[in-house]
């Protein structure tokens, strides 16, 4: 079964994440990076969830990674693949696998970033992934 176009709700930005969604409009996937402990984290936020530091910044991800886990919700209309993808930079993030054969997804499969538009006009796109 091939993946069909899913309608993505537009994410609502807040002061903590405005910069992330603004970068998403330029098709850049940003992740949190802590200047105190050096850890990368996701989702991005104004404090480091590892050391508690507030000296944090957004850094751009390569957009490359592999499927950590996945599931196709067969009961949805249309069916779609949700996944956790582990980025090459380290953090694992929730996403959808798109432009794929829904019957042929595998843990460990290499995937790359492809932003998907969302339902509101001028709304930020969301970071989805497709098989390499």
């Amino acid at each position, binding site marked *: 079964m091939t993946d069909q176009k899913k309608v993505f709700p537009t*994410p609502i930005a807040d002061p903590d994440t405005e910069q992330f969604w603004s970068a998403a409009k330029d098709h850049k996937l940003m992740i949190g990076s802590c200047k105190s402990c050096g850890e990368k*984290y996701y989702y991005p936020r104004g404090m480091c969830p590892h050391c508690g530091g507030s000296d944090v910044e957004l850094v751009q991800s390569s957009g490359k990674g592999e499927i950590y886990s996945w599931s196709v919700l067969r009961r949805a209309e249309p069916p779609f693949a949700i996944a956790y993808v582990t980025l090459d930079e380290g953090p694992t993030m929730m996403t959808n696998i798109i432009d794929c054969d829904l019957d042929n997804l595998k843990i460990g499969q290499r995937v790359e970033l492809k932003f998907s538009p969302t339902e509101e006009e001028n709304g930020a796109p969301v970071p989805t992934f497709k098989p390499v």
Partner: protein
Amino acid sequence: MSINGKAYIAGVYEHPTRKAVDKSLAQLHAESAMGALADAGLTKDDVDGYFCAGDAPGLGPLSLVDYMGLNLKHMDATETGGSSYVLHVGHAAEAIAMGKCSVALITLAGRPRAEGMATGTAPRNYGSSAPDVAFEFPFGPTVVNMYAMCAQRHMYEYGTTSEQLAWIKVAASHHAQYNEHAMLRNVVTVDEVVNSPMISDPLHRLDCCVISDGGGAIIVTSPEVAKSLKRPLVKVLGAGEAPKHQMGGKIDLTYSGARWSGPLAFEEAGVKPSDMKYASIYDSFTITVLMQLEDLGFCEKGEGGKFVSDGNLIAGTGKLPFNTDGGGLCNNHPANRGGLTKVIEAVRQLRGEAHHKVQVPNCDLALAHGTGGSLGTRHGSATVIMERE
């Protein structure tokens, strides 16, 4: 300071309804409360502590306290989803041990069927102010596909199979056949589970729990009150609670917060998993049970598939009888929150009041464990260990 021996479970009640079109949410809470008080031999005027969670309508505990006309010295509306009520038993025991109250009432109710809620397959939006929502909701996380990703990863890392998961449903169905209130009373086979329609890979329809309206209540009391009543004495030996979350993206879907709540409860109780004669294990899905059994220490991590196979969870034949009321998988999952009914069936077992076909002989030690939220994202785990005195 420990709660061991400082509190008793004196009353429990499981509302018999499974579809409540003719009852309000507050009414279901109140009927459950009165049922548990009657079971204990107490009245509402004896209640001086009240515990509820996010299923309670209105502001925290206040609307239901008002509806039931309670006069209280202590209240607690800690919300950790379906595990709340297991956690509340521990909190109630703490409050009683501290002398803050002596008769604590815990209630749960909900009507997802009457309201036509797409419980498992529709994404739930907890509001845009929850910091994770923008990063998750657009991708369609539902209850079932989140637990499915846990199962998928567990299979990948440990070789767990759909047939092994199916044994959990098979065991629950063996128990449910004796429960006149259970929604699914037909005994099912491993083949029937793995051949039921795929809902979200690798979870089939029969890997999922029922969706039911209903409710329940628990009365936790001081030792003095419990000993003044005419019910078997069920003592709280230990309780543990822990959250598990995404750890900033260091996500590991193969274990649950039971890894932490379990040892805390066992340590306080001074017993070990192999001492348990019976276990109530949260069963939103088959995978939920398997992961928690491992995390609670009933078997090694990754060995859950072997542990649950061949009827090992079936009362009378297996080593660890579980969810002898049929659990959430076959009996009842009121309000999409199964923690409270886990405590109720454990109490029935300890009192010797379970159905005679599933009653564990000389059941003097039992565990109830709940998970609330999602194993796939963030959840609260709560474990309670009880002893028949």
